[in-house]
């Protein structure tokens, strides 16, 4: 039987996908802004964030309305509650892209401390994880979600390497590099946080698909 409710769920899904597209774009643009030290792009990331904020409110109000009026259960319930959580994660991801853009504005007039190699690499991982988590959500694909979760340690490792390099090779040797090193250190931190949010989305997707909470547990503990 076709349900009117399904159309409303599709509406919620569409808005979440719009959120995901905007969040992905924000990471991509903020990384571009950093690589080219382009203040205009950085500013556009900051300005575009209001669209994501507005969309977040729309999705949240919509989801609360569906919970109150349709009293969903089973897969419907899991989809809506997961949608609400993913909504919040995407908004945080976009905020972190804004943070990266703000770091760009701090260093745009200064020469780069070093050629950027690892930070774009970390950004690629972050984008891949966000895209992977959203694909897992769209396709209800537990395997894809697991792949996202399993790639998080790689992001952590890269962030640590970036941090060590900036500390040991630059800041500890020459304190005057701090004004250019700290923003890069923070960018690495922001990117790594994006990966954490992508991991959260992937965990939420597993809950949606399998009705099993995997947060704060190792995947193996959850029967793979």
């Amino acid at each position: 039987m076709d349900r009117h409710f399904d159309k409303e769920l599709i509406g919620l899904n569409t808005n979440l996908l719009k959120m995901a597209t905007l969040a992905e774009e924000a990471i991509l643009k903020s990384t571009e802004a950093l690589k080219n030290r382009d203040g205009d792009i950085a500013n556009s990331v900051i300005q575009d964030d209001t669209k994501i904020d507005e969309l977040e409110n729309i999705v949240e109000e919509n989801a609360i309305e569906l919970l109150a009026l349709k009293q969903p259960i089973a897969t419907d319930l899991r989809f809506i509650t997961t949608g609400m959580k993913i909504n919040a994660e995407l908004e945080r991801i976009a905020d972190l892209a804004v943070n990266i853009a703000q770091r760009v504005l701090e260093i745009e007039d200064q020469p780069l401390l070093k050629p950027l190699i690892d930070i774009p690499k970390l950004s690629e991982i972050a984008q891949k994880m966000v895209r992977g988590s959203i694909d897992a959500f769209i396709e209800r694909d537990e395997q894809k979600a697991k792949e996202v979760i399993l790639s998080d340690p790689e992001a952590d490792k890269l962030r640590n390497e970036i941090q060590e390099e900036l500390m040991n090779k630059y800041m500890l040797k020459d304190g005057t590099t701090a004004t250019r090193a700290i923003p890069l250190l923070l960018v690495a931190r922001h990117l790594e946080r994006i990966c954490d949010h992508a991991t959260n989305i992937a965990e939420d997707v597993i809950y949606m698909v399998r009705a099993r909470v995997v947060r704060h547990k190792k995947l193996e503990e959850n029967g793979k």
Partner: protein
Amino acid sequence: MLKTKIEVKDFNFFYGDQHALKDVNLNICKNKVLGIIGPSGCGKSTFLRNINRMNDTIAGTRASGTMLIDGQNIFAENMDVVELRRRVGMVFQKSNPFPKSIFDNVAYGLRVNGRKDKEYVEHKVEESLKGAALWEEVKDRLQASAFDLSGGQQQRLCIARALAIEPEVLLMDEPASALDPTATAKIEELIQELKKKYTIVIVTHNMQQAARISDYTAFFMLGELVEYNETQKIFTNPEKEITEEYITGRFG
């Protein structure tokens, strides 16, 4: 540890040629609420009415398999059906008070069972009305006609009447379907209280009600028990596709 109150094994039931219940197996736990859901004609009321052999009154019916209450076969030839119905009380969809006073409605079952001493009857009426969360509303007008009560109060009066004879199990066939939301909420609250003393089996068409009040849920379809599990499991992640379709309204 959960104690089984009613054990159902390979239970079948027929109305003449019509096979109404097919190989039903389930255990009903003591002091828990079992919600029975399923589309109209799926056998849920038939199942309920078998627990106190209410279907005996229908000609041409036949049961096979076993249904035990505390290990005793409900369908045994030597089962005293009157005693069984004292142990297994029933509340119907439509409240059906007798054309008597509020007091006499509750006292009726006691008197039929031979308890005539005034003090005991008065004590039991008060206790039952309190148990049914009706006492405060009627204590000053116990001699008024039961028909003066509102629909929700009449239904609670019927629950009080069932409680008076100290049953062990309460069967409820859509007890709140004709009531407004406030009266429904009162009945639902009451069920949560009653399960401390009684084992409750409730048939309901209202999914949210089943989710709110039952500890276990059984989903029947076409006379078969499709899925039986903890209510939390059925309503968040049912095992069978057909259960999911039914509870989310995709069915049909």
